[in-house]
């Protein structure tokens, strides 16, 4: 596709938000161009200004307090100086936008048909309803919604997340726009769904000749889908260029660091650990506090055999689901027939997409849920149906770190109290002793001891997750269950938290169960991996073995869906996926 | 206890005090019988006299009737109003002010005749009187009406029990008796037009009881117990139109079977009478001023909001206002069980009457009282003052002498009981507290629920003794305006009760008791008035009661009303006389 006249041109864009503490420059001197049919990736971590940029492209800052200078030109229309009417004529017609969260970006109270038809008719008022409807059915078909003629009458909540994102994309297609602007279109989605959505966008771009602007925090997401990439940081484009060049030979240190932080599915546990340890040694050498490397070895997991720390035997959990006219309830098995052993010092990764039962499983091990069937044995003690009272010692030995560091900390409790409460619950009365212990631990997880009296809102997401980890560690547990501990964090923060977990394992001989949907992350932290799907374990084994040589189709599917950083490899993997799908369609 | 009184209005004095207080000019004529609309004209004479019939007379009330059944009601306004459809044996003379306290006949053919010792009374009724359905009114119907209203086993609980307490009758229940007329022997009906009342004891003032609505005839077969009030069988000039709807309305229309010639007290001018029930007091007052209503049925005068509006702009309203005495005495009981006579007298001397008067609202609130009987009652001498002092500020020296006499030279402490939610009562107590401090008498003010004040607190002998209650703020309105009707229950030793005691100071003075007995066997009203005057002096001398004010009400007299005058007998306008002229 030969680049022609640019369809989007941004020149020295500056977006300023006036606040009480003075102006905040969200975007500072950004320039780029997208040729017709071209594809641009905008990559940056939170606060980089990438979303502000995408809203500015749509002119959606109108009516807010944002000040915009510079030039934005979309399909020949100057967005900054356009009248409201001109802007409205442009939106959806010349440039359509796909938003981050498909659960939120569709109106819950109107059918998707209504919303699609509306999107068309606002720009083509002469089209009859029936025509617009046909058009909508076509668009839904185009984005791969099965049975579109019927599904058009459904409400958004009747679709899964991936399907909803397809609907949003279909809505963007209603007026055959010249540019499709996708702002984090896959962030909330499962890996396989993410792959499909990215494939769809790529396909649409090729088939319809639309330009694509793909905004993401994840370099791997844009790698296989765009020609050119802009890396943003604090409102400034630190690097811009051909995607291959930027990814293979980044010039700016930030880009380099970002790339280094991206967990790579091809890196094994052993490699990662060796890397982490040598990094740590280097750092400690610089700081002059060398830990004897031999000490690490002590905590290398004992080979299988001996008494496992945790034994899970054929556990299952069912929930009653109400339904039907007569209100008969049916059993839904969230987890069914899962067994594994876990040895001291080992990390078991549990990987699966949403609804796979991985969270339910971890809750059963915590005994936050009582298994419907099967046995959970911890340190030789059957805790499957133990009373809450008898479980108390267990509560000390097994701790949990949750996904969302924002909601898992009570905003009205100081950090010190949040971490120290567990000690108090366990009977410690000496306040000074508690404080000392908490401060030591805060230091250990990379925070300052004087953070003791601060409230959670003063901390970033990564710091909060450190607090959560400190809270889990305070009682010196034997087992920590991490439920998606890094999935809400930026890549670089994510990397730091993973390192911390690894160091802590080295120092304290911790045993982890690491639950996540991100295959790369799981591989790098896990000695063994269990792949779950629909409540069952489809594959369980040594992590390298599973990643190098997956036995089940599902695992393979997951692996091919995992986004890759190398643009060429990403494209070849896309081809592989398409082939797989084509084959599946043929055999079906 | 009722909003009723007899007696005469202190002519002139009332008006001039009121106007002097408000800095207004002269009050115009007082005491004329056919007064033009002027300030207080309705208190002393007939305003807008007229014989013109027609129109609708519109009443409204914020509360409700206790009952429209003449046998089951004890509100003054209700006694005044039920006369529209319930004729009684006797009645008060339809005339302004003092003249209204004279008794006259209604159903009766002549005044009742007593025997020598006033234990038997005989009265004849007019012949040929008819109910609204055309049937004739008989003496038996009156006998039955008295029976059902006094001996009903709680079915009709509201009315007073004067007949029950005075008639020589074994208790029974009309609604359970197989033949109530046979069982009710205290009243004999030798023929259809004669009633003979047999009393337990001498009762010279029995004819006053015969003015009460319980003497309105009710045929036995028409009686529906508590449901009778829904539609009372009329003997008067008006009958119910539809049912009485509690809380909503009562409408009256002309009763064609009533014969005006037989009726000395009812000109029956309007064609219709309507009562709107449950209208907010502020709205009633406002609508009367606006001419959208005619009379506030409750007959206690305008509400505080409207009253202050009048006082602020007196000149605009002056000619429509009447400010008569309500017939009530506001006073403080000084409890004899807890305080000796000299101590009580010390209180009477030390009290700052001027301050007490102001606490009650000054001249607009009422007249400063120094004696027991209200000026509207024969025998009253408002000039008498046994505890005089300069400017009514209290005589502290005399008070100290009395304290020395009762052995409390350094003063003493006691409790004064006040009804909750009565700001004037509280102000009275506070004023007294302030003035008694001057002679080291310390009062502790305690408030009690108004509805249980006499049943459980100030009127309970045990409670008073156990809690050292030395004083209590009270008020009294007579059932009829005589010394007996006013003073017996609050000063006679025979009236003292363990609970619900209205002789709250528990005065049990042999001389006073003997004078009451004498009054009940004295036929001549003037002689009785003299006895009542003696009782008045004795009670004040004993300092069992510290009079505060004879209070006044403020009425707004609509220009569209005709034949308006204030009757002392009910302490409100005479409803039977009223007509309307919408001209």
């Amino acid at each position, binding site marked *: 596709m030969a680049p022609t006249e640019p369809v989007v041109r941004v020149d020295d864009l500056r977006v300023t938000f006036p606040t009480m503490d003075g102006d905040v420059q969200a975007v500072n001197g950004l320039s780029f161009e997208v040729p017709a049919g071209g594809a641009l990736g905008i990559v940056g971590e939170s606060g980089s200004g990438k979303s502000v940029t995408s809203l500015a492209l749509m002119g*959606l800052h109108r009516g807010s307090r944002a000040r915009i200078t510079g030039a934005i030109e979309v399909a020949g229309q100057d967005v900054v100086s356009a009248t*409201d009417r001109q802007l*409205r004529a*442009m*939106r*959806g*017609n010349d440039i359509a*936008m796909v*938003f*981050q*969260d498909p659960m939120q*970006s569709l*109106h*819950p*109270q109107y059918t998707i048909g209504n919303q699609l038809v*509306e*999107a068309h008719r*606002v720009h083509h008022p002469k089209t009859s309803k029936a025509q617009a409807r046909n058009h909508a059915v076509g668009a839904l078909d185009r984005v791969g919604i099965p049975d579109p003629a019927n599904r058009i009458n459904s409400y958004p909540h009747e679709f899964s997340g991936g399907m909803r994102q397809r609907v949003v994309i279909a809505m963007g297609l209603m007026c055959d726009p010249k540019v499709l602007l996708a702002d984090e279109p896959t962030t909330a989605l499962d890996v396989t769904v993410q792959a499909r959505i990215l494939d769809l966008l790529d396909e649409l771009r090729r088939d319809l000749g639309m330009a694509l602007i793909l905004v993401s925090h994840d370099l791997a997401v844009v790698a296989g889908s765009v020609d050119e990439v802009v890396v943003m940081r604090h409102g400034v484009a630190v690097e811009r260029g051909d995607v291959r060049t930027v990814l293979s030979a980044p010039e700016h240190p930030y880009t380099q660091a970002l790339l280094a932080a991206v967990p790579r599915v091809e890196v094994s546990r052993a490699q990662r650990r060796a890397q982490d340890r040598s990094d740590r040694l280097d750092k400690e050498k610089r700081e002059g506090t060398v830990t004897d490397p031999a000490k690490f070895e002590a905590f290398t997991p004992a080979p299988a055999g001996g008494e496992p720390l945790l034994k899970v035997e054929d556990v299952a959990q069912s929930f009653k689901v*109400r339904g*039907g*006219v*007569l*209100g008969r309830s049916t059993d839904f098995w969230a987890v069914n027939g899962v067994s594994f052993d876990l040895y001291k010092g080992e990390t078991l990764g549990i990987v699966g997409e949403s609804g796979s039962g991985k969270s339910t499983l971890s809750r059963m091990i915590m005994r936050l849920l009582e298994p419907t069937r099967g046995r959970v044995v911890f340190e030789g003690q059957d805790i499957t149906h133990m009373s809450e009272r008898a479980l108390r010692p267990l509560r000390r030995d097994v701790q949990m770190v949750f996904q969302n560091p924002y909601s898992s900390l009570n905003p009205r409790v100081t950090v010190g109290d949040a971490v120290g409460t567990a000690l108090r619950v366990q009977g410690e009365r000496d306040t000074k002793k508690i404080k000392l212990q908490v401060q030591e631990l805060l230091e250990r997880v990379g925070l300052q001891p004087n953070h003791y009296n601060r409230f959670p809102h003063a901390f970033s997401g990564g710091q909060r997750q450190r607090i959560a980890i400190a809270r889990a560690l305070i009682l010196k547990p034997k087992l920590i269950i991490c439920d998606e501990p890094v999935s809400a964090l930026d890549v670089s923060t994510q990397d730091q938290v993973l390192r911390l977990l690894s160091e802590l394992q080295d120092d304290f001989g911790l045993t982890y169960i690491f639950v996540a949907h991100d295959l790369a992350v799981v591989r790098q932290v896990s000695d063994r991996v269990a792949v779950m799907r629909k409540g069952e374990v489809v594959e369980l084994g040594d992590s390298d073995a599973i990643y190098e040589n997956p036995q089940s189709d599902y695992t393979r599917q997951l692996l091919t869906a995992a986004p890759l950083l190398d643009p060429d490899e990403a494209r070849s993997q896309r081809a592989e996926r398409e082939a797989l799908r084509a084959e599946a369609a043929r055999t079906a | *206890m*009722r909003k009723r009184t007899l007696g005469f209005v202190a002519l002139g004095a009332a008006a001039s005090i009121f106007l002097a207080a408000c800095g207004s000019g002269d009050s115009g004529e007082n005491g004329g019988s056919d007064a033009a609309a002027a300030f207080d004209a309705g208190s002393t004479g007939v305003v807008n006299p007229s014989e013109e019939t027609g129109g609708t007379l519109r009443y409204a009330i914020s509360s409700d009737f206790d009952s429209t059944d003449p046998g089951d009601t*004890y509100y003054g306004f209700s006694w005044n109003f039920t006369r529209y459809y319930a004729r009684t044996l006797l009645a008060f003379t339809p005339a302004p002010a003092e003249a209204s306290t004279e008794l006259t006949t209604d159903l009766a053919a002549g005044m009742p005749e007593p025997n020598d010792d006033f234990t038997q009374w005989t009265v004849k009724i007019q012949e040929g009187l008819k109910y609204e359905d055309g049937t004739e009114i008989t003496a038996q119907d009156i006998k039955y009406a008295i029976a*059902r209203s006094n001996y*009903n*086993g*709680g*079915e009709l*609980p*509201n009315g*007073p*029990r004067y007949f029950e307490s005075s008639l020589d009758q074994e208790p029974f229940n009309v*609604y359970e008796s197989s033949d109530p007329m046979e069982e009710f022997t205290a009243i004999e009906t030798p023929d259809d037009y004669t009633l003979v009342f047999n009393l337990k004891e001498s009762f010279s003032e029995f004819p006053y009881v015969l003015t009460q609505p319980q003497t309105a005839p009710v045929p036995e077969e028409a*009686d*529906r*117990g*508590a*449901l*009778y*009030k*829904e539609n009372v069988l009329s003997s008067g000039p008006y009958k119910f139109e539809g049912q009485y*709807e*509690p*809380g*909503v309305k009562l409408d009256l229309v002309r009763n064609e079977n009533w014969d005006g010639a037989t009726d000395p007290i009812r000109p029956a001018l309007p064609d219709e009478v309507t009562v709107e*029930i*449950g209208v*907010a007091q*502020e*709205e009633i007052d*406002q*609508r009367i001023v*606006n001419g*959208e209503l005619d009379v506030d049925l409750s007959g206690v005068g305008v509400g505080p909001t409207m009253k202050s509006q009048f006082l602020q702009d007196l000149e605009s309203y002056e000619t429509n206002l009447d400010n008569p005495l309500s017939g009530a005495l506001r006073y403080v009981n000084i409890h004899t069980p807890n305080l000796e006579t000299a101590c009580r007298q010390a209180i009477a001397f030390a009290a700052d009457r001027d301050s007490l008067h102001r606490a009650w609202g000054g001249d607009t609130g009422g007249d400063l009282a120094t004696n027991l009987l209200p000026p509207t009652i024969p025998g009253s001498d408002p000039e008498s003052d046994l505890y005089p002092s300069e400017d009514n500020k209290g005589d502290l020296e005399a008070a100290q002498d009395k304290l020395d006499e009762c052995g409390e030279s350094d003063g003493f402490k006691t409790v004064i009981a006040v009804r909750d939610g009565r700001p004037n009562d509280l102000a009275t107590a506070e004023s007294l507290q302030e003035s008694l401090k001057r002679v080291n008498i310390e009062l502790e003010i305690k408030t009690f629920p108004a*509805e249980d004040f006499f*049943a459980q607190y100030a009127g309970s002998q045990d409670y008073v003794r156990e809690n050292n209650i030395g004083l209590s703020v009270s008020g009294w309105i007579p059932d009829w305006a005589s010394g007996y009707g006013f003073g017996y229950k609050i000063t006679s030793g025979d009236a003292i009760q363990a609970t*619900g005691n209205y002789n709250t100071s528990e005065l049990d003075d042999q001389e006073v008791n003997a004078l009451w007995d004498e009054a009940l066997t004295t036929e001549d009203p003037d002689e009785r008035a003299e006895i009542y005057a003696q009782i008045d002096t004795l009670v004040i001398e004993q300092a069992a009661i510290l009079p505060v004010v004879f209070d006044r009400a403020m009425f707004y007299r609509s220009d569209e009303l005709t034949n308006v005058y204030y009757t002392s007998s009910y302490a409100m306008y005479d409803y039977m006389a009223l007509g309307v002229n919408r001209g």
Partner: protein
Amino acid sequence: MLNYILRRLGAGLLLLAVVTAVTFWIFYVLPKWAGVTPRGMAAMYVGKAPTPEALDATVERLGLDQPVIVQFFDFIRSLVFGDQFQFGRETVECAAPCLGYSFTTNSPVLEQLLARLPITVSLALGAAVIWLIGGVAVGVLSAVKRGSVFDRLAMGTALVGVSLPIYFTGLLALAFIVHEWKVLPVPRYAPLTENPGAWFTAMLLPWITLAFLHAAQYARQTRAGMLEVLSEDYIRTARAKGLSERKVIFKHALRPALTPILTIFGLDLGLVLGGAILTEKVFSLKGVGAYAIDAIIGKDLPVVLGVTLLGAVFIVVCNLVVDLLYPLVDPRVRIAG
């Protein structure tokens, strides 16, 4: 669906029983704790200076000395099966659902309630229409013109409206609009069926007064709801489609903002249908609310029970209707069978 309605009605009946029981308890047990004897209670229903005999007779007649539980079941029994009452020598039949006779006025409670209901229903429905439309309109406008003079003025007024009691606004309205300026005649209720004009003019002021209070609250709620919805992603989506601001607000933002309002509306309407006590009192309307407050002051148990039950019935029914309507407004909500 039918199953659901039946279950909800069953729960409603249970609620009514509980409400009745609690009313009984408050009525009989609380005074007993405060040391009031049956005679003391009887004193509330007889004249001002009753004889002890009259008190005893009243205690007997009203059954005030019976255990609470007996009285409670007597009440339930006559409610379900009807009852007979004795007046003088007359026996009166009271058919089910019999709410008995007033202690103070001896009038049949159900009949009185039904006679007063049209007034309360007129008041409630009229006011509800006004406050819903007015409140929502002001709220939407305020949200859209957030921070404008209109917004501040409207929200200021709303704050005043929420904090001003009805007897203040009502009396003020009466004093000026009716008595001072004579814009409207003195409100005197006339049935709609007999005289629609008089009905309308009589109800107008009460409607506005009652609606003002609620409208203020609805305006605030709508504004808050609108502001919340306007920050939703799907509103951004709608704008990104190129929709006009009017369409964004009225089609996309209003509906979700109104959904929670519907719930409150159901509850408020139910409450007002059970009697708008202050409004009825201020405007001297003889509705259920005025009946209720008079009964409470007069400690007239059968009437108190009657109005309480009626109020509870309205609330149960209104909530049920709202819950049944909810899925129509918000397709995400499904009624569990």
